[in-house]
């Protein structure tokens, strides 16, 4: 099944890499939305339904943790799984992200297969 994904990262290059990695690993992406920070991502979600959100932590304006804290109040995103993708690899960052509602955590650098390993389980058969 094809999925619609939202990739949130302040680096446009990293957004492209994440999309490319998932496609390379065989994840069927029907549509990819992009946002440069959490606030932009909320705007995207106000008008679009997605099946998966991949999100950086350190971003300007609204960081990834603040963004996922706000997701329960967004109609289009209430049950959408969020996977964090970040260079911050500490245990406390992982715990913090998971306690904020993230369902997975990918540390950069990563291979396409590693990205897929973290994404597929949270999709519940949609991939």
């Amino acid at each position, binding site marked *: 099944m094809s999925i619609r994904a939202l990739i949130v990262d302040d680096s*446009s290059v990293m957004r492209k890499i994440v999309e*490319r990695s998932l496609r390379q690993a065989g994840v069927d992406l029907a549509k990819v939305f992009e946002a440069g920070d959490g606030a932009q991502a909320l705007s995207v979600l106000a008008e679009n339904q997605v099946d998966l959100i991949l999100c950086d932590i*350190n971003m300007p304006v609204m960081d990834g943790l603040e963004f996922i804290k706000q997701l329960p109040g967004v109609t289009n995103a209430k049950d959408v799984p969020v996977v964090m993708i970040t260079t911050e690899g500490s245990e406390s960052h992982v715990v913090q992200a998971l306690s904020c509602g993230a369902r997975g955590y990918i*540390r*950069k*650098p990563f*291979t396409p297969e590693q990205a897929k390993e973290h994404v597929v389980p949270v999709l519940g058969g949609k991939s």
Partner: protein
Amino acid sequence: MKSANERNAADGNHEHWIPLLEVAAREVFELMLSCQLTGPSVAEGTDLDVTAMVGLAGQLCGVLSIRCEGKAAALMTSKMLGVELHKVGREMPDALGEIANMVAGNFKNKISGLSEGCMLSPPTVVTGNDYSMHAQADTSGLEVRLQFESMPMIVSLQIQS
């Protein structure tokens, strides 16, 4: 109780971090660009006119930088994005900044205590070579010379601890 790395960070002895810096760089290139760095390189006489820098703050303060030639930077971008070399354009600084960011993050994640206690700045990329860099470093810094596709590349870490 502090780990050996934490004690060494505190007493200014960082030479043993050089292999970790090299491994951090090699892993980023293998995983994200699907290529092996070789080395060491001889950078003298070459024009390393692209510099990507990431600041570190917290338990370890300093600047990690990656320097390479413009054509190497373009090829890195091409490999990272999976686009043809002649199509690489404005993405190059962003790509080099991300590489520096990942090397810095990967490096600090390899050192006990630094992963939690050291933050990274957004990357900065400078093109051109008519400049001098003055970091508030109180050590001579660490440097790893490598080759990317037979082109020289220098990864360095200036430390103010």
